């Protein structure tokens, strides 16, 4: 029997057999978690702009992002954020907290391999692509900016 043919038909059969989970509950959870995180961000934004009225809006935004990044790292360390993530799915990944969690989780996980080879080497195993694509993308944008 032709192996490729057998494999494609088996793959099709398995795809049809896959359990059909309802999409709506997980979509709603993602919406809720993502929305709450953004609202918390807005809260910090308002607090910072109330106490530091002289700062520019972009600086206040940076401060707000840094605050929620710090809090996420702390919650990751406590083992709370992975529960939020398992419940909220993309709702916990897309906000900047997901980026923060993807840096702090490997560093905590691989601590046992030492500070240099564990924490420092493994820190960007998941978030590395974000930094790389971010830097490369910003350079491309800069080149585009030359012609605008």
């Amino acid at each position: 029997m032709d192996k490729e043919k057998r494999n494609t038909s088996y793959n099709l059969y398995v795809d049809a057999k896959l359990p059909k989970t309802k999409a709506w509950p997980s979509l709603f959870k993602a919406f809720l978690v993502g929305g709450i995180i953004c609202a918390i961000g807005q809260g910090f934004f308002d607090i910072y702009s109330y106490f530091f009225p002289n700062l520019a809006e972009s600086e206040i935004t940076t401060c707000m992002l840094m605050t929620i990044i710090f809090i996420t790292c702390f919650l990751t360390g406590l083992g709370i954020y992975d529960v939020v993530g398992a419940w909220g799915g993309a709702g916990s990944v897309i906000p900047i907290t997901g980026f923060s969690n993807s840096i702090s989780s490997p560093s905590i996980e691989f601590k046992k391999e030492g500070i240099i080879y564990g924490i420092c080497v493994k820190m960007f195993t998941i978030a590395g692509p974000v930094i790389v694509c971010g830097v490369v993308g910003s350079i491309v944008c800069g080149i585009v900016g030359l012609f605008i």
Partner: protein
Amino acid sequence: MQTIKMKNNAYILNGFSMVGPLEGKGPLGEYFDYVVKDDTLKEKTFEKAERKLLYNIITGAIDKSGLKTTDIDFFIGGDLLNQIVSSSYTARELELPFIGLYSACATMTESLGLSAILVDNNLANNIVAGTCTHFSSAERQYRFPLELGNQRPPTSQWTITGGGACIVSNIPSKIKITAVTFGKVIDFGIADVNNMGAAMAPAACDTIKAHIKNMNTDIKDYDFIATGDLGKLGSEILIDLMEHENIILNKNYADCGCMIYDKTERVFMGGSGAGCSASVLNSYILKKLLNGEFKRVLLVSTGALMSTTTSQQGDTIPGIAHAIELEYVAPQQKKTCSIPTSVKPKSTTKKIKPKDNKATKSTSKRRKTNV
């Protein structure tokens, strides 16, 4: 031939199983010999915890059979970690000749089969065969860090924390190893690492088919047929595949991965890992065989033979399955009276405390504590 029939010489003296807290809460909880409360086992790393778990399982099996470590000729086993470190380091502590094997989650039946062949041909008297896995160490090797807030796909399985070991011996006991079938590596082109059940089901189908053909038996002759860790989806696929071959798997079929967890637990398709079939064999199956409830059992452990590197490079997942046939033999008074083979009541076996790794030398002196 793929199937090796024994010459009625290889017996299983006893088995010992030990699992983590989540597995202990499951439906098979009462069958396990020991349930650890803390899955770190008070070790600093999960790799060390897995090692300690395996060490306790092996010594537990030796103790429970009323043997001494010096009576054991070989330790045959393996695990899921890279370079099967858990087994090697356990062998270092045990100071036993060690034959390390790897067939992913099918390691239990592979080591049991090889042990049976050695014992059956009088090449060894007593062999301990065992394996174990740890959820957290497997997770950090194969998947993502534990703290990462990701969602597991609905087809994923949960590597169990736990394992089991049994003593294969030429001393007659109630459980005889009748035959073993070593499976072919079969790949039906599944590339999704989160759907291992579908990748391994064709291998299980092929091995069961070969075993039944070579043994000239029928599926109805077995009281119980168990697959290792196909999970819910994988076992449904296996039933379909077998039906295609005109073999109907009936109520006597179950999957260890589906048996081990409660339906309410968030483990998706069920348990997986080398420890899955090992712990179910050494608790539920052996106990049912020992009290004569099961007369003839076929255990088919299944394994997915990929690595993180091959799956990142887009390769498909090859599956393997090894089958072992166990039979209940009515006890013959004269032969068995000197050897304690009966199952201990749960209350006494529960008292076996996990021993410290450092206590190797003292345990070899500590004889028959359990008998």
